[in-house]
């Protein structure tokens, strides 16, 4: 087939122009991003509390895959290492991290990713990339009885100005969102009733084990970044609100239309 191609100087020039155009078009293609963690060690007082972190396989291997063909700016984003680094650093600074099977453990914390959403400049006409991440934190006591169930959201955005590519912009925005989650945890964790009770040597009251997403739903969530199920949201809404100082941030709604400020309150809740 190639033999039949006329490679006269004129055609050769056309080919070069076409190749140049193809390269330009490919430059704007969807990217697969692996987020490099950029989370500092929190400057907080370590609590005299032996806690264990539990990472499920789904959490450790979480990769957001974009299945909507219309959304052409992102193919996949892998921030599994970045998010485990954030939780390791935050709870490593706040508590004495021990193995989950350690007999001295008084608390276990199991983070679960509920939702991941993003917007790109091509979708919003704004010169910025935005990321929303929603986590659920299940806290269990030494006997593995559920004692608290929190949801917490992080928001991050990066202007396009100084960024060289969509990949670096997603990387930066995800790190800012993770920093946001880490900042909320670092500043609020010591003020939570469960933590105060444990620090006072008391035993926190157990709460009913709340409904979990079905295995298939959880897998779908991990694969598609779908909206969380109503049952999961209920788990947070059942919580009693503990008064906390309000945050500075008044965030915009996520692309799904969910109000972000609601979450800031949820993060203060304790069941």
């Amino acid at each position, binding site marked *: 087939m190639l033999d039949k191609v006329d490679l006269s100087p004129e055609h050769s020039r056309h080919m070069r122009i076409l190749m140049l155009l193809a390269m330009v078009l490919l430059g704007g293609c969807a990217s697969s991003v692996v987020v490099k963690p950029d989370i*500092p060690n929190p*400057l907080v007082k370590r609590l005299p509390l032996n806690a264990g972190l539990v990472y499920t396989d789904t959490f450790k291997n979480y990769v957001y895959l974009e299945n909507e063909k219309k959304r052409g700016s992102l193919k996949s984003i892998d921030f599994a290492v970045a998010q485990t680094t954030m939780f390791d650093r935050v709870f490593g600074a706040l508590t004495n991290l021990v193995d989950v099977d350690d007999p001295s453990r008084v608390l276990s914390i199991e983070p679960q990713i509920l939702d991941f959403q993003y917007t790109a400049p091509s979708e919003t006409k704004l010169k910025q990339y935005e990321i929303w991440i929603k986590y659920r934190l299940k806290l269990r006591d030494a006997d593995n009885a559920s004692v608290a169930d929190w949801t917490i959201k992080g928001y991050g955005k990066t202007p396009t100005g*100084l960024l060289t590519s969509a990949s670096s912009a997603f990387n930066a925005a995800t790190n800012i969102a993770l920093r946001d989650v880490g*900042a*909320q945890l670092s500043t609020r964790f010591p003020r939570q009733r469960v933590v105060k009770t444990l620090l006072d040597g008391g035993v926190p009251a157990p709460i009913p084990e709340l409904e979990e997403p079905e295995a298939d739903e959880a897998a779908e969530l991990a694969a598609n970044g779908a909206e969380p199920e109503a049952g999961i949201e209920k788990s947070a809404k059942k919580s009693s609100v503990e008064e906390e100082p309000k945050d*500075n*941030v008044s*965030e915009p709604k996520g692309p799904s239309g969910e109000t972000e400020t609601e979450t800031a309150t949820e993060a203060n809740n304790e069941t």
Partner: protein
Amino acid sequence: MKRNLKLLSVSVLLVALSACTTINVDQVRLKDTVAFKKGDAMVVLGRHQTAEIQTEASLVSCIGGRLARGTGDVRIIPEAEFVDAFYPWFEARTAPLHPKKLRRVLDQPQVAEKIKELNIRYFVWVEGSTERTNASGSMTCSIGPGGGGCFGFGTWEDTSDYETTIWDLDTFSEVGRVSTEAVGTSYMPAFVIPIPLLAQVEGDACQGMGKQLVRFFAKDPNALKTSP
């Protein structure tokens, strides 16, 4: 020789045609003197508390650079370095909005200790942004086998609106404010090649604000010695 003359003519033409910016700088001094001890440090931070308020890191860094050059005795800590060192207390969500809130942050012994260790005396908060406020004109570019080119004329206006607030850590109070408004119009005529005549609005706002801040921190505000 002829080529050099051509280049010179083009340069002169570009300078003559270059876009210009109008800057207005205001200062409010709430304390007569701002004292520095040798080794004192200062930190310049941008406000990011809402999705709308996202002060550009480049401007914060530019002001920091101007202060570093203008106030020789004071050490300026870069924003990123400071925010990382004090994580999570100066993130968008957690950064104190008032000096009294800063006092509460410093109730954390680790934070107070680190502030002391770094000899930080003043906080300079920068809030605002540069936005495109007006644009008009049109330009058409085309490319073909014989070559390509652009034809048309475009013009746009950028407006910078910034306010810096200075906090004194000795008294946990606001000691001054400097606000800057800069408006600049850029032009882009295109006859085969587009010739951008850009107004450096953000840069000019930084220059105006930086100069005023140096004057604010000068021992004798009337004897200003600063780099342009």
